[in-house]
């Protein structure tokens, strides 16, 4: 009669060989796994528009944005154990999304060469310095912004101006202004200090204003441009 050593017997002590025993389902583990999938699926569903919006802002193309989101979600699932605080799901997955973009899509992205900004600068003095460099016409408008100008700014003007921003400013504005992340959450999503987020928000918005002003000038919407047309 074959006598099995203790370590080769089923752990429930029924006497059956361990190799032949169907292991009982660990209800706690299975429940935990279901909770992970339910948690993950629910958060993806709730935030999908935001993830897609940021992906679109990064890639500039709908098809690439869809692929980027799918890639990020697949990576996120395999890396779920790295999410330390479930309340930080959004910034955590935004960070994965951006890392996927950097590793897979950035080199394929067809965008003009961008001006490199010194990110070590905290940005203090950005707005006042920017204004000191601007023309008198812009400054008069800046000091007394006209509702008419603002009302006439078209959706495509804003979209064009956003797309013209350097990537780091563009995605930061998308995360904070459009998707509502705090500076702290955006810093986590982008892997940068909070001060850098603050600086990018200031600089990005001032650059955006400059671009919108330029578009308005071209379209004859600004006071000086209108005056020129009247005089012609």
């Amino acid at each position, binding site marked *: 009669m074959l006598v099995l050593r203790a370590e080769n017997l089923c752990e429930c002590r029924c006497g059956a060989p361990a190799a032949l025993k169907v292991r009982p389902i660990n209800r706690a583990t299975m429940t935990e796994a279901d909770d992970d999938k339910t948690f993950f699926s629910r958060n993806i569903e709730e935030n999908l*528009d935001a993830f897609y919006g940021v992906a679109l802002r990064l890639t500039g193309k709908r098809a690439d944005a869809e692929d980027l989101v799918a890639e990020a979600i697949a990576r996120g699932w395999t890396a779920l154990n790295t999410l330390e605080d479930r309340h930080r799901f959004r910034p955590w997955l935004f960070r994965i999304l951006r890392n996927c973009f950097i590793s897979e899509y950035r080199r394929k992205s067809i965008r003009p060469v961008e001006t490199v900004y010194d990110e070590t600068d905290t940005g203090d003095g950005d707005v006042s310095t920017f204004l000191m460099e601007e023309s008198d016409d812009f400054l008069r408008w800046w000091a007394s912004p006209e509702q008419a100008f603002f009302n006439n700014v078209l959706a495509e003007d804003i979209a064009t101006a956003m797309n013209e921003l350097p990537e780091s400013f563009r995605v930061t504005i998308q995360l904070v202004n459009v998707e509502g992340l705090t500076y702290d959450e955006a810093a986590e999503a982008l892997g940068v200090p909070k001060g850098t987020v603050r600086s990018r928000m200031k600089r990005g918005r001032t650059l955006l204003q400059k671009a919108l002003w330029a578009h308005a000038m071209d379209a004859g919407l600004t006071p000086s441009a209108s005056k020129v047309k009247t005089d012609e």
Partner: protein
Amino acid sequence: MSNEDHTNHDHAHDDIGCIEAIEALYAYLDGELDDTSREDFERHMSHCRSCYSRAQMERALSERMKQEGKAKAPAELQSRLKALIDDF
């Protein structure tokens, strides 16, 4: 921006200047100022017409950008991701 100070000088002794207010504007709109800075900013806004109108315009522009920047994930993407997650 001109160097002209738009503040009411009766309040100047406890008021931040226009330059400082403009520098804090975006953080204020984003809800990122601490209590003291926020109070200083709002105090300046209460009596500086120029900075107040600038802040109103920036707030409206931010709202506009938020509206225009929102995207809707296509139905095909939703289906694709549902199938992907079901396979997890």
